[in-house]
């Protein structure tokens, strides 16, 4: 692996920029997600910044079960992000569909629409769990490389 590739991998691990998308959550997980960005938890010290535009972001943070209304928008936002990109499903509904599973207007968890890298169950998820998930996600980049890698560079 060349030096430039190493430097870029290091940068990827040290500066995950996130974008938050509500795919049909009850707002409980959204409040906790925004909570983790407040000065109390201060995610900027590990390089996490909230971006408004999907083009700038690396990590898509999704909350809630995917409804038929948001399904196309979720795919569109996922397609707008540039590679390498990651998805974190926050909350039980985002992981499996939760109590909304088999509802007439719900397609299920986030992974029924787009590939998900990290699942965080909980109702609602605590900010500490979100920080831990992002940490695990960045750690998984190293593991991925050990196993031959390439999963995250599509």
């Amino acid at each position, binding site marked *: 692996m060349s030096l430039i590739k190493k430097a870029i991998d290091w940068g*990827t691990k040290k500066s995950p920029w996130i974008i938050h998308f509500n795919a049909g959550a009850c707002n409980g997980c959204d409040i906790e997600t925004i909570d983790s960005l407040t000065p109390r938890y201060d995610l900027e010290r590990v390089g996490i910044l909230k971006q408004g535009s999907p083009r700038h972001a690396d990590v898509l943070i999704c909350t809630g079960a995917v409804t038929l209304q948001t399904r196309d928008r979720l795919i569109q936002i996922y397609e707008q992000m540039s590679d390498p990109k990651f998805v974190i499903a926050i909350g039980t509904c985002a992981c499996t569909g939760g109590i909304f599973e088999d509802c007439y207007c719900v397609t299920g968890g986030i992974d029924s629409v787009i590939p998900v890298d990290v699942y965080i169950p909980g109702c609602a998820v605590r900010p500490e769990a979100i920080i831990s998930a992002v940490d695990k996600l960045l750690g998984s980049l190293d593991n991925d490389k050990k196993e031959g890698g390439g999963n995250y560079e599509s």
Partner: protein
Amino acid sequence: MIEFLKILCKLFIFPGFLFLSVYSFLLDFLDRKLYARMQNRVGPPWYQPLADFLKLIGKKTIIPADANAVIFSVMPLVSLAAVTVGFIYLPVLGKEAIFSFSGDFVIVLYLLAIPPLAAFLAGWYSRAVYSTIGATRILTQMFAYEVPLFISVLAPTLIAGTWSITELTGFYAAHPLYIFINLPVAITALISFQCKLERAPFDSPEAETEIVSGALVEYSGRLLAFFKLAHNCELLFVISLFSAIYLPFMTGIIWVDFILYIVKTLFILLLLILMRVTMARIEINNTLNFCWKYLAPVTLGQVILNLLLRGVL
């Protein structure tokens, strides 16, 4: 040959491009760190701007189908090039800039106007709703700050009687007390520079909470990295220009002057951060009102005062 190598070294390594980018990363870090500390946060680690830059370099660049591909991909480089060329005429190591001629002031002011125009073109040709709004706001804001900025930067040249930045710095270094005459325009220049850099309270062109990130909303990957680098370099460029015009304290020993330069830039950065932390964003029409009602009259008064003083001094 050795002269040639020396000039190349000056252009690309020490007071030139490499120094500019490395020091601007450092200033960006200090900006974010102090901003965080003043909000009672811990703030990012020292390598954060570098990590952001490397990450963006490694990401895939997407050019939207509706955008004009040539303008979309050239504008970040235009922005960076303008800032880098302008930095050549600013005194960093002692009183002397890398190059100077009589009238480089005008060149520097023109180059200073290019990064916002590049951002405007980039946003306009992205053909997205938010970027178009951001681009229009950038131009509107240019109408607000450009006149106060130009007059307040040119007012000190009336006393010095020169339009070369190196000679101007030399003149004020020889007469350090004269800089107190220019104190009102120093304040207006600081505010107009804040307006030019699109930092709070004048950050409505890139307001994340209302128009996502303004003109750069469609940018990704390498092109975004170069825009960010150009923006960081513009910060250092503006701060160096300010320190050359309004804080020209010199000792004459080159390395002491260089340390003085670092101290001066950090001090000006602190003032800019204080302005950013203590004030909330104001609307674009209020920016226009403020710049034309309060900044422009002060600078015009200073011009009259300096013309009168020129006869006396």
